[in-house]
């Protein structure tokens, strides 16, 4: 699809925000507190911070909540009555302030939920999300989007991508039908495209590896000391998976009260010792090394094999939060 370029004044961003809220949309944006910057529901423009590299958590919970009801059931002597979770109550959500890596992450995430079977709940939520992303002007030593086919100004996945220019105003690249709809609803705020180039206003992210080469190498790396070596300090928590915008493992849980109950899906992590534990007591991934291998192979080999895009967008979140300082970039570059 043809990308339309506009200029939007710094002062118009707030108007755009207010119009979105005024149109009944729920807006999630980066909010800063003492110890973290999270995507949170915001009501006023002043609650949003623009002083962040990437948020601590990923925006995925908007489409893949950490706990989601699938259905409820009621048993009687003869029958079991099942009521599917309603898709109607889901509001239209604007994700404001996603980074290009965050937006790109929705591509593999959506693929995962549309494998053998299209996930109705996920697709319903995803259909109601507008992604208004902001290009990155800065990066840190954990960022590696350019190694996994991304970039600090990548438009893939976003509906509109804003890039701050030297004047303080923004280039707005309108990428999708959804983006065009938002522009049409706010036409007065979008002016003729600026002259200034986008590129000089983007962060310079070093390219550390090439995803295709890594994918090829991983074909023959199942048995290798690198997995144990690089994961020795791993504590087996779920932080890396839970902050990852692409990780999608879940666990099915029934919460039952007498003859009634609900079935939930809850986030799961390959770092946990219960992950893939069989009923027999056997676990094919007995050690943290085997679990770390699963994480890397899933992202850099199995996912690109299956759906053509890697399961990692190089946001670096997992490495930033890891309590044992296990660094995914370090593992991948050592391969």
């Amino acid at each position, binding site marked *: 699809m043809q990308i339309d370029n506009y200029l939007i004044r710094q002062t118009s961003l707030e108007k755009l925000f207010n119009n979105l809220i005024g149109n009944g949309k729920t807006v999630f944006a980066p909010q800063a*507190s*003492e*110890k*973290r910057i*999270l995507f949170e529901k915001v009501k006023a423009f002043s609650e949003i911070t623009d002083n962040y590299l990437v948020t*601590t*958590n990923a925006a995925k919970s908007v489409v893949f909540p*950490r*706990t989601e009801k699938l259905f409820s059931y009621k048993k009687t002597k003869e029958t079991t009555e099942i009521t599917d979770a309603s898709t109607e109550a889901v509001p239209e959500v604007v994700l404001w302030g996603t980074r290009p890596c965050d937006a790109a992450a929705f591509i593999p995430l959506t693929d995962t939920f549309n494998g053998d079977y299209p996930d109705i709940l996920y697709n319903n939520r995803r259909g109601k999300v507008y992604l208004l992303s902001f290009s990155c002007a800065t990066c*840190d*030593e*954990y960022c590696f989007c350019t190694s996994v086919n991304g970039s600090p100004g990548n438009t893939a996945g976003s509906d509109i991508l804003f890039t701050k220019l030297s004047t303080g105003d923004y280039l707005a690249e309108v990428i999708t039908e959804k983006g065009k709809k938002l522009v049409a609803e706010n036409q007065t705020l979008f002016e003729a495209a600026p002259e200034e180039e986008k590129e000089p206003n983007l962060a310079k992210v070093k390219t550390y590896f090439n995803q295709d080469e890594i994918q090829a190498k991983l074909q023959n790396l199942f048995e290798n000391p690198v997995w*144990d070596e690089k994961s*020795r*300090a791993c*504590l*087996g*928590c*779920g*932080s890396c*998976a*839970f*902050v990852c915008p692409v990780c999608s493992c879940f*666990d099915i*849980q029934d*919460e039952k009260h007498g003859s009634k109950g609900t079935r*939930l899906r*809850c*986030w799961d*992590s390959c770092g*946990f*010792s*219960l992950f893939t534990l069989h009923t027999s007591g056997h676990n094919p991934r007995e*050690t*943290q*090394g085997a679990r770390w291998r699963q994480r890397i192979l899933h992202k850099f080999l199995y996912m690109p094999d299956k759906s053509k895009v890697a399961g990692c967008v190089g946001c670096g979140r997992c*490495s930033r*939060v890891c*309590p*044992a*300082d296990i*660094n995914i970039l*370090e593992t991948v570059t050592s391969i």
Partner: protein
Amino acid sequence: MNELIQKAKSLLESDTVQVVIGYGKGSADKTRAIFLTKPEDCDQLLFDSRCVQNLAVYLTKHEIKHLGKPAIVAPIPVLRSILQLAVENQLKESDLVILGVSPESKLIEFDSFGAIELFLNAYKIQIDEKYKATIDKIKAMPVSERFAFWIKELEPCFKCYACRAACPLCYCPKCTVENNQPQWIPAASHLLGNLEWHVMRAMHLAGRCTDCEACYNACPMGIPIHLLTKSMLQDVEEHFGPYGPSVGKRNTLSSFNPDDKESFIR
């Protein structure tokens, strides 16, 4: 520092230990836990104020035990955890070599758990005034306000269990939250699930927690769960006397005597 490196080298050279658990350079300006098995790698060891991860957590991990007998770099918080693990029969003196690090960054060797206890007597756990003030403030809230406070603080918890994973005293091979037949604590990170998880975690650490703050430091969401354990420490002190692990003595909440002042047990 040099002392520590030399000692670590000689322990590996003489095969007294097979692995040295210490701090080394990490990502960006962080330090990280490193596991050295070759004498020539010991130069990677470092120690400074950034070394706050509690290394004692690795003493009970099967992947690390697998490497052989360890020597462990142990500043005061790590020493406290080692002593507590010893009280709980999780460590024997012959299991490890302790490379103590004093607050002046001097190497101190300990030949017994008793020696650690003696040394730690001079470094009693002191809860920071700023935390005391916060805890007092929370405790002074009316019940409904206090409940609302915790609901709000615990809401972002997505149950990654990093707090548990980083705690040297959360070593149970099967945590209560992993009892899933039936599920004891809801696995979901909804309101009830989060509340039950945090009450359970805090209660299981009452009288055992050594206030190392590893749990809080590990939490990616910055949830102030250390306030719960700190408050427990104060409660234990108030009712049973100051926390002071001692080999041969039992934990405050897992021991009882016929002459305990509580009457419900009789």
